[in-house]
Every structure is written in structure tokens, then in C-alpha cells.
């Protein structure tokens, strides 16, 4: 997993935005330090996460895994800069996160994240022009490159409402990756897809990641998805979310999905999550 080895391949594969600095693998890119997130409903003040610590090194695919109500989504939104923690801090690439920014591109679960008034190509090109200052031509070229990568070549001029759910999510992924973010934040991006499409798009994401190697912070409640896509899994307990375990899963992918070691890890995580449900403090 040497990032430096892959950098030349990545550069020939696409027109570079600017000299890409691969995040050093030994240096933390993202530090979540003692983060507590609370939000108000009409009746109560809810604590979503309580003093969570997570560190992601350069090039890691970090998974936030947990049941509903463990605050994993809130945590991701805090890293995105959409939510402000009430306690603790989030340091990204050496600076505290205070607001959203294009170096932390987010792929949401909801299909509504695409702009219905823009075609697939325009959806991908617009952020490049707004946030990266590319010309129309440069942005379109770059958008086309990523449209090919997510296999939507025929649908560049299609409006989002004509696409299937899987195609919409692939567009959102292309939009995020075209920005060459330092980290890709993914908030249960495949949860609304059918099982067959989900499986296919998971494989595509991994293949794409191989060529890009940015950090990923991925929220899911699927243990299998966590093991397949992640290199490090942060298991969160519910109500409020606290870190229960941090587990390595770098060695697992689609090729060894049924093997005993995979199944053992899956069962282990299952027990970690389930024991909490029963033990309930």
C-alpha cells in the first residue's frame, strides 16, 4: 500500500488539477478529538456522540460503523463542517474544521444531492468552476473523464430525474472525486440502492479508489460493507455514540468475502454491536 508507487499512474490517468500531494501515510490527516455532538429536538436535547476520538492516517479508508442513533452521520457532518461539536475539536490537514469546504467533498445518501436543473456533466463541472476556478472547457473535459470512470458515458447530457438511483449515486461520486478532495466523506451513500446495484457500485468505488487513493470516511450500518470497503473500522455504540472498537480490515475485499477470517471478523463486530444492545447501561 505504498502511495508513492501509485502516484505516477494516477497522474497519467487524468489531467491533474494541480500538483497532487499524496497525503503522507505516517501523518494523521484527520483527527477527531473528544468530540461531543448534541442537537435539539422539540422536546429534548439529544447527545448524538460523546467524546469520540478517531484518527485517520493518510490514505486510509475509515469506516464509522454502528446502529441507528449512534451519531455516526452527525460525526461525518461535523467533519464536513455542516455541524458544530459542543465539545472537542476536529483537525483536518493541520487546521481546525470550522465550515464546509471542497477539500472535504461529501456524497450523501439522498438522491436530492444532485441539482435537478443541471445535466450529469454540468453537475460535475459546476463545482470545478466554482471552487477550483477552472474554465468551462477544462471543467467539461475533467467532468467527461470522471463520467467515463463511473461508466455513465452515454448519460452526460441526461438530467438527474431520468437516471436510476445507482446512476445518481455514481454521478455524485464522480462529482466528488473530480474535485480531487483530500478526503471523501460518504454518508451511507448506497443505503437507498437495491442489493445488486449496491454490490456493483461498491466494487466500482474500490476500483476507483485504487487509482486515486484519497482518504475516505464512510458511514454505514452494514457490517459487510464496512469490512469490504474499509481499511479501518471504528465501531460505535448507540445512545450516545462512543467508540467501542477500532479494527483493521485492510486485508479483506470481494475476493475473500466468504473465508473464515472474514466471517470471524464479521461475527466479532456483530457481537460488539449486539452485546451493547443487550447490556444497555
Amino acid at each position, binding site marked *: 500500500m505504498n502511495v508513492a508507487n501509485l502516484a505516477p499512474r494516477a497522474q497519467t490517468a487524468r489531467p491533474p488539477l494541480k500538483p497532487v500531494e499524496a497525503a503522507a501515510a505516517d501523518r494523521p490527516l484527520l483527527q477527531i478529538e473528544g468530540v461531543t455532538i448534541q442537537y435539539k429536538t422539540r422536546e429534548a436535547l439529544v447527545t448524538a456522540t460523546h467524546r469520540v476520538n478517531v484518527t485517520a492516517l493518510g490514505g486510509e479508508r475509515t469506516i464509522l460503523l454502528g446502529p441507528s442513533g449512534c451519531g455516526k452521520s452527525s460525526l461525518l457532518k461535523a467533519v464536513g463542517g455542516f455541524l458544530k461539536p459542543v465539545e472537542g475539536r476536529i483537525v483536518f490537514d493541520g487546521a481546525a474544521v470550522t465550515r*464546509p469546504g471542497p477539500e472535504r467533498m461529501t456524497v450523501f445518501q439522498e438522491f436530492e*444531492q444532485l441539482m435537478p436543473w443541471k445535466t450529469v456533466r454540468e453537475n460535475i463541472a459546476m463545482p470545478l468552476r*466554482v471552487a477550483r476556478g477552472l474554465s468551462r472547457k477544462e471543467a467539461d473535459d475533467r467532468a467527461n473523464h470522471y463520467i467515463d470512470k463511473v461508466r455513465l458515458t452515454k448519460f452526460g447530457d441526461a438530467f438527474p430525474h431520468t437516471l436510476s438511483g445507482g446512476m445518481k449515486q455514481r454521478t455524485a461520486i464522480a462529482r466528488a472525486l473530480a474535485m480531487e478532495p483530500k478526503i471523501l466523506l460518504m454518508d451511507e451513500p448506497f443505503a437507498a440502492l437495491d442489493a445488486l446495484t449496491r454490490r456493483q457500485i461498491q466494487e466500482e468505488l474500490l476500483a476507483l479508489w485504487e487509482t486515486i487513493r484519497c482518504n475516505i470516511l464512510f458511514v454505514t450500518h452494514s457490517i459487510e460493507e464496512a469490512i469490504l470497503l474499509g481499511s479501518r473500522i471504528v465501531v460505535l455504540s448507540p445512545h450516545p455514540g462512543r467508540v467501542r472498537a477500532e479494527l483493521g480490515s485492510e486485508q479483506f475485499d470481494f475476493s475473500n468475502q466468504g473465508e473464515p477470517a472474514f466471517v470471524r471478523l464479521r461475527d466479532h463486530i456483530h457481537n460488539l454491536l449486539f452485546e451493547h444492545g443487550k447490556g444497555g447501561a
Partner: protein
Amino acid sequence: MATISAISTAAARPDVEYTLGALGQIGDSEKPLSFLERLYKNDTVRSVVVIVLLLVVWEIGARINNTPLLFPSFIDTLAALRSGLASGALIDRTITSLEVLGYGFGISIILALGLTIMAVSSSFGASVLTTLIAVLNPLPAIAILPLALLWFGLGTPAIVMVVVQSVVWTVAMNAYAGFQSVPQTLRMAGQNIGLRSLPYMFRILIPAAFPHLLTGLRIGWAHAWRTLIGAELVFGVAARQGGLGWYIYESRAMLETANTFAAILLLILIGFVVESVIFQVIENRTIRRWGMIH
């Protein structure tokens, strides 16, 4: 997997895999409708038929009645319309009306946009807007005409003020509702790429709220058109250059009833063109194309 074959029923009903052959003639089973059937199902054809029927009833009714001073026939009205347009009088009046409408509508949109920006940027601004709408929207615009005359005198500014009162609250109300209905995810997607304040407004909020904005403009236009003609009926703006409303009033006073009818027909035509052509084209090219309405 192995356990399944051990179940006794599985042995009784073995697994089968089928090879899929060619489909045959099914692909040709769709057959186009006949020309008459398609004509009958066409909405435009249907409305044209209804309109033609109405005109025929009008013509026959007027001929039986035979009192052109009270109820001129369609053909007489058409002749009056033609001579009115040919002499340029009707065209002048129409332009005057549309000009006043343009001012009023333009000012209203700018005001409404300002109010809405204020409302979406702070909760106090939102309270101000909702209160203003609650108090002023139900007030019939024509009711403030005397006041407008007092302040601005006889002339265009007074009518513009009345038109603004009839439009601005409807447009602002719809714009505000539209901005509030923009999905949270889309907002975050916009903020993610660093959009803030006005660029955020113009690149995300306004297009995302466009279905509501268009509805506001449509209703606002209808209000403006009615209020304008109503105000012109009450007084004619500075003598020579009255609008269509004044034309109707004048020709009635001179018992040129065919001219009155011609101007009313023109009002209907203009309303129809704006609503069913202009707004419809905008709708088809924007929100319908984008799948924001179906």
C-alpha cells in the same frame, strides 16, 4: 448450501435451469393509433373545438337577439377589433397598459426578492415578512387607489403603486415558501463546494425553488393584469394616453359597444398568450424538463 439438497422435498423437485430462446413476434405487438383517434386525444384540438363552439353560440345568439348596441355579434366585434388595430388606437392603448404593468411587475419582483432574501437570512427577517404578508396580502389593491392618487396624482406612478400592492406579497410568499422547501441535502451539497451568500442564493436556492417562484410569478401576473385594468377603468391616467381599461370605459360611454367588446376580446387574448404561451414555454423549458414537476 449443502444442507438444502438434503431436504427431502428438494429431491422430489430437482433444480432446473432454462435456456432463454428468441422472443418471436411480441416486439411487433405495439400498433399505432389511427389519425382520428390521435386527433380526438389531442388537448389542443379539444380546446380549439370548445372555443369554436363558444364563438358559434355567441354569433347565433347575437343575431337572434339583434341588438348591436347592447350585444354585438362576434363578426361585428372582430371588425371593430380590426379597425381599432388598423387605426393604431388599440395598439397604443395596449402598449400603455403593458408598459405600466411592466413597471409594476418589475418593481414587485425586485421588492419581493429583497424581502425574501431578508427573510431567509435571519429569523427576525422571516417574522417581518410573514407579518407583512399576513397584514397586507388580503388588502385588495384597488382599495388603495384613492390613496395612491392622493400621493402621486393622476398618472402612471399611482397605478404602478396599486399594481405593486397586488403582486409583491404573492410573489414574496411563494418565493419564501420555495426557499424553505429546498432539500437540506441540496443545501449542504452547495455549501460543500464553498458557496455562500449571494452565489449560494443564485446557484442553489433560486433554481431549486424555481417551481414555487414560477407559480408566484404566474399568480402575480394574473393579479397585476386584473388590478391594472380595474384601476384604468376608474380613471384614465393623464387624458390622452389611457390604457385598455380606459378604452373600454370610453367606448362604453360613447355607446360604441362593438369597440368595448373588441377591447375585452383583446384582454382575453393577451391573458391567454401570457399564461398559455409565455409561462407555459418557460415551464416546459425549465422545471418540466428538469423533472421538478411531472
